[in-house]
């Protein structure tokens, strides 16, 4: 079953939910067919027990010792077959479930990385994450239920044939009675689901309230208000309790009905069978067998109801997955370029290192220099950085060549935009900093020094081998910012665009970073978007942007002396 964890999931059919489910099923056809086979044997093992039991009782009544041993052995044999087939069926069910779930995770992950910067614009995080939290389970279950569902149909058919051939009338009573009994609890299910839903909602709210209390515990213990919150929690907790009792009142009704309805049917069947037995139409053993069939049939019929439910849910989940899988990235290689790329290795598309120009704002990033961009409005700087890195469309040229004429992959490798929205990923700290995997220990040390992040690593007991938790959440905002800077420096792109790289660090550290950044990027092209005087003072050239356009340029000191707008922007009205 190695195929379950295969590297390449293949290309899914994303035209519709049924197509997607079909694609999933086709990928595991063998598992499904073997599983169905076992499920059929497993069901039959159960279905035939009443018949064997009935024959054993007939042998007993006839005081036929040999036949009794024979039929008792048959019951035992059926038990063993059932246990063995049941285990194999379960194994196949788990494999099918997992295979479908894993492949869905794989294709969703691949799609998320393919969409890249487009994803947050087109989808909410919750939408995609819910694939992992619930959709894969529904898709997995829809594969799993196929096995038991098909088996159940076979089992029902076989029992029907046995019953009809023994006693047509009794057979029909059982066949009509069992589905009726199953359907009769239906009216109770709707209020039950409604009350359960209400209970779940309230419970969800209660959990949120509890998380809220824990999240704000510092505030509550620091300033007060515990009593208010304790009372509010108690009130909501009692509401959940009463909702639970309301669920219980229907649920207990259901528990009673599940005894009453089959019980009455079984009483009827037994009564009829007993009368037939007295008339000699069936044997005493067959009386017991019919009792057994009526009891048995409840299970496969419930399985069919379950199958309908699970396949519906799988369909809904597949629709969500399809929606995600069918989105296209906003920034893609131009169609004619894609043609050339197929014939030609991308090595040719390397313009010599020239100036990077954003036509709209007039920002020009000169090669081999440290340029700073100070914007009167922070949003301007972000918009310009997005255009320069080709995350947003714009007229941007590199050494005279429009970025749109270059392969996206090449641009991403050449120009790195490092902003404060960037994430740290979970993993070993050293691996997360050295994303190319090619840096030496000295490179890493140097980058940490330049980003003033050495103290963060020193404070970790395992140093660079420490595991970073998801999003680096055990680090403070300032620490994360410095680690991200170290990562960007280690990536060592030809052109590095940093957006407010020191906004969350203290002035002392900021001064050090500003001093070290120039050395770390010597001979490389760098643009820093910042309003920190400490950083601006270290740049070779400062561009001041007002109303989306460069309005002045020069060194920090020159601009301080000549531009009053610049002065008030970077010294924050300190005059």
């Amino acid at each position, binding site marked *: 079953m190695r195929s379950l964890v295969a*590297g390449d999931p293949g290309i899914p059919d994303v035209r519709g939910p049924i197509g997607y489910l079909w694609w999933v099923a086709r990928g595991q056809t063998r598992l499904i067919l073997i599983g169905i086979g076992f499920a059929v044997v497993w069901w039959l093992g159960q279905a035939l027990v009443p018949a064997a039991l009935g024959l054993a009782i007939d042998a*007993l009544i006839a005081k036929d010792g040999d036949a009794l041993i024979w039929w008792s052995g048959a*019951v*035992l044999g059926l*038990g063993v077959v*059932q*246990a063995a087939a049941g*285990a194999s069926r*379960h*194994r196949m069910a788990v494999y099918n479930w997992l295979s479908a779930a894993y492949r869905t*995770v794989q294709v969703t*992950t*691949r799609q*998320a*990385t*393919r969409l890249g910067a487009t994803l947050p614009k087109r989808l909410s995080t919750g939408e995609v*994450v819910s694939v992992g939290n619930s959709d894969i389970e529904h898709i997995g279950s829809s594969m799993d239920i196929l096995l038991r569902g098909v088996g159940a149909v076979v089992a029902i058919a076989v029992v029907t044939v046995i019953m009809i051939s023994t006693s047509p009338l009794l057979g029909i009573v059982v066949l009509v009675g069992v589905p009726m009994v199953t359907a009769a609890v239906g009216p109770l299910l709707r209020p039950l689901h409604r009350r359960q839903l209400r209970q779940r909602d309230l419970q969800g709210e209660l*959990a*949120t309230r*509890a*998380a*809220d*209390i824990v*999240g704000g*515990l510092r505030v*509550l213990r*620091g300033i*007060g*208000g*515990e009593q208010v*919150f304790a009372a509010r929690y108690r009130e909501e*907790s009692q509401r*959940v309790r009463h909702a639970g*009792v309301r669920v*219980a*009142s229907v649920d207990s*009704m259901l528990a*009673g009905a599940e*005894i*009453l309805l089959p019980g009455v049917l079984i009483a*009827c069947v037994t*009564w009829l069978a007993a009368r037939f037995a*007295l008339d000699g139409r069936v044997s005493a053993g067959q009386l017991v067998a019919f009792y057994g069939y009526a009891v048995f049939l409840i299970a496969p019929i419930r399985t069919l109801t379950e199958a309908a439910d699970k396949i519906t849910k799988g369909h809904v989940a597949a629709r969500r997955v399809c929606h995600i899988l069918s989105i296209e990235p906003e920034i893609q290689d131009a169609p004619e370029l894609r043609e050339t790329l197929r014939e030609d290795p991308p090595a040719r598309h390397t313009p010599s290192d020239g100036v990077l120009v954003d036509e709209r704002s007039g920002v020009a990033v000169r090669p081999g220099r440290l340029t700073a961009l100070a914007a009167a409005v922070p949003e301007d700087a972000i918009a310009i950085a997005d255009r320069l890195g080709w995350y947003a469309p714009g007229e941007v040229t590199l050494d005279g060549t429009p970025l749109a004429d270059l392969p996206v992959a090449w641009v991403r490798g050449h120009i790195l935009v490092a902003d404060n*929205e*960037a*994430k740290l*990923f979970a*993993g070993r700290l050293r691996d997360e900093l050295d*994303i190319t995997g090619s840096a030496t220990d000295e490179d890493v040390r140097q980058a940490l020094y330049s980003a003033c992040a050495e103290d963060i690593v020193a404070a970790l007991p395992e140093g660079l081998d420490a595991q970073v938790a998801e999003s680096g959440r055990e680090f403070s905002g300032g620490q994360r910012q410095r680690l991200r800077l170290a990562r960007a420096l280690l990536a060592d792109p030809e052109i590095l665009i940093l957006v407010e790289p020191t906004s969350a*660090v*203290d*002035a002392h550290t900021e*001064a050090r970073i500003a001093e070290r950044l120039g050395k770390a990027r010597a001979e490389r092209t760098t643009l820093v978007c910042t309003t920190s*005087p*400490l950083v601006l*003072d270290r740049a070779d050239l400062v561009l001041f942007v007002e109303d989306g356009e460069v309005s002045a340029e020069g060194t920090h*000191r020159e601009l*301080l002396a000549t531009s009053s707008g610049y002065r008030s922007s970077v010294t924050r*009205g300190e*005059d």
Partner: protein
Amino acid sequence: MAREILPVADRAQVRAYARRLMLKHPGELVLALALHALAAVTGLVTPRLLGELVQDVAGGSAHVRVDVIALAIAGFVAAQAVLTRFAVFASSRLGEKVLAELREDFVDQVLGLPLSTIEGAGSGDLITRTSRDVDALSHTVRRAVPETLIAIVTGSFIVGAVVLVGPVMAVPALIAVPLLWGATRWYLNRARDGYLRENAAYADMTEGLAETVEGSRTIEALGLQRRRHERADRDIARSFAAERYTLGLRLVWFPAVEIGYVIPVVATLLIGGLFYIEGWVSLVQVTTATLYVQQLIDPVDRLLSWVDELQVGGASMARLLGVADVPEDRTPGATRPAGEDLRAVGVRYAYREDRDVLHGVDLEVRRGERLAMVGPSGAGKSTLGRLLAGIHAPRTGSVTVGGVPLVELPIDELRGEVALVTQEHHVFRGTVRENLLIARPEAADADVWRALEAVDAREWVEALGGTLGEGLDTMVGSGGQTVSPAQAQQLALARLVLADPHTLVLDEATSLIDPRAARHLERSLAAVLAGRTVIAIAHRLYTAHDADRVAVVEDGRITELGPHDELVAAGGPYAALWESWHGTAK
């Protein structure tokens, strides 16, 4: 910072608590158990009657007798259904009641946790306990406890019934007990860890996907696509390995148990049958006993499948009860402060043994003074701030207000003296008003607006709720209107203005607000806080410039202390930093 993990209650404590909880409502418990017992007894009549029926049919009895028996079966089924209905209801009602008490007790304990624990432990552990453990326990109390109780009651009655039918018939029923017992023990010994690993691996996989989604732009920027694919594939491989392990366990346990169920049925039938042929027992006895043994499968199966769940619930309960074991971090003394001057003398503090982060700090803050603390990260500013706010006691030395050590004040008094606001911000679920009234429940709307004005938040609060103009009544926090981190910091500060302690420690309390806006905010806040003592830990130098005095903290020591102008005039490191920050234009 060392990650303290909250304590976990031991087995004896869990047992004692569970017992206390059970016996707290003796009447309801007895009622529920009695109803289940009655339901079980009525359920036992049907097989007996069926046995009679088989005997009658075999003996060729009258139709009338068959009719009566069939009617009796129907009657007992109806009785059993009704009894079951009330039994399930009674036990569920009791379960809900106990569950509510459990979680309310827990939240009360959480709300009473010592300050130093909250500041030190990080919220991860506590959040897990509040969400996952409360959930797990709910499931156990709602399902596992009643199901096992019912199974035990029903099972015992069935065994009793078999013995009543004929003591000799009980023997074949018992032959599978060693198999069931052994297989289940084997399984349970391994299952717990196996499932924990399985769940952890599964969670890793879904978290990995979440991370890929949240960081999709970063992935594109840094070209991490391959890595993320590999991470997903690795997670899947780990999840599959864990799944295979538990599957392997089930592939042993399931067949063993199922065969364990069928053996007694066959044995009863065969041995009973041979006894019948020998004339030692009657036909009724054999048929009834066989049906009883078959009926026994259900409660035994329930019992076996819920034992596991009981263990999980027990573990969760141990973690919930553990919160009550956190030792109190302060013993209030009797003396009350005389004056409002805050003084630290010879303060040292260490998070880990032998690693002092503060090396003998002396500091005196006069009433109504504004002191700014600056210095590189990791220098000990925040730690000093926490000591000055009375969260922790210094390892050596003292921090006193009006001559009384802060940690010897009862928590309610401490709040009146000094309050701490950090850069961590939390908006509670509720209206804006509720968020602010935490600090002073009796405050009037006018006071609330004044506080919001002091932190430059009036404008956006008024605009909240769009055209509805709900203002203070707007729901915020999780599920409500989104409030930006910067606005959350403003709310936290407004709360502090309402609380109005005479000393405030602000640890980067405006760090998330745009630098230009922050400056304005700090000034308007200063106006409202005139006369209050403010200690501001800041990473922006204008905060220092605006303060009465500046303390430069480096490497666990105060290296420079004095008014901004004096420090600049002195030409030390602070002056150098200021010059380069401010430029030479001035």
